[in-house]
């Protein structure tokens, strides 16, 4: 290959990488959202959670869980049916420092067929908004999306695959997962650890 051909290939690869956002390979999977690049707001945030776990990383994580321990076994069971977990969460010093346009671009994806809004809670005085969406394909849940915004916090969660909220609920009080007070839920047995 001569130099000009090599340069052309490099330019094509570079332009493809510039145009195609990361995670495009997973974008075809039902329940997968195309999350915007939040690099700009990540710089302003005082706390950032940026998690991208695809199938291979999830199975790797499952391999490091001890099935003989009930807590680990529960998590392993939950992530066993997942194809991806993507979390972007930013906490700021001041109020409303995140761009609404980015949030809207995600909301727009959630208005597409397949996605259905389960919960939409908007608290005007506290400016706490949470929208929970579920993606169903042929009657089966194949994805979950949560968009939560508070004045100083903004979070997007996208779980791809078979999501069982009941199983997730069983993890409350463990691994730092908060104790949820969902209706009709019995408090879990105290963790003796």
């Amino acid at each position, binding site marked *: 290959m001569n130099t000009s051909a090599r340069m052309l290939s490099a330019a094509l690869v570079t332009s493809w990488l510039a145009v195609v956002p990361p995670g495009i390979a997973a974008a075809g999977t039902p329940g997968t959202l195309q999350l915007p690049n939040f690099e700009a707001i990540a710089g302003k945030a005082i706390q950032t959670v940026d*998690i991208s*776990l695809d199938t291979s990383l999830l199975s*790797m994580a499952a391999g*490091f869980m001890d099935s003989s321990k009930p807590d680990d076994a529960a998590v392993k069971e939950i992530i066993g049916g997942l194809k991806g977990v993507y979390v972007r969460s930013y906490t700021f010093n001041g109020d409303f420092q995140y761009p609404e346009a980015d949030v809207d671009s995600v909301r727009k994806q959630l208005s597409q067929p397949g996605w259905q809004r389960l919960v939409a809670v908007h608290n005007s005085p506290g400016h706490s908004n949470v929208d929970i969406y579920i993606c169903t394909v042929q009657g089966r849940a194949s994805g979950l999306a*949560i968009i939560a915004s508070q004045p100083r916090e903004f979070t997007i969660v996208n779980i791809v695959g078979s999501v069982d909220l009941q199983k997730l609920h069983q993890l409350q009080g463990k691994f730092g997962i908060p104790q949820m007070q969902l209706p009709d839920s019995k408090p879990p047995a105290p963790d003796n650890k």
Partner: protein
Amino acid sequence: MSNELNERLRAALRPVDPGEAFTQRVLARIASEPPRASLPAHRAARALELRWMSGALLAIVAAGLLAAHQWQAQHTQQGQEARRQVMEALRVTSEKLDLAYRVVKHTEHSGA
């Protein structure tokens, strides 16, 4: 009879000069033979070669073991990090589900 035999034996076994030609032939043959010292040198070279090969083999095995150990350490680190991220993702998800519930509860109480 014994004297005659004795004389004949003496005549047969008398010292004879082999001549200059024989001496030259012997000297030429000695010169043409390969030096006896070359055999131990060959063996020494072979031993050195074997020693180098063993050393190289040991180095390859050691490098392989080191690479396997590093891969294992890296794999463990990645696995632990993936596990930590799964837990963090579940924590954030539960936190937001809880926030949704709290907002609903708050709205219900406000409306009541």
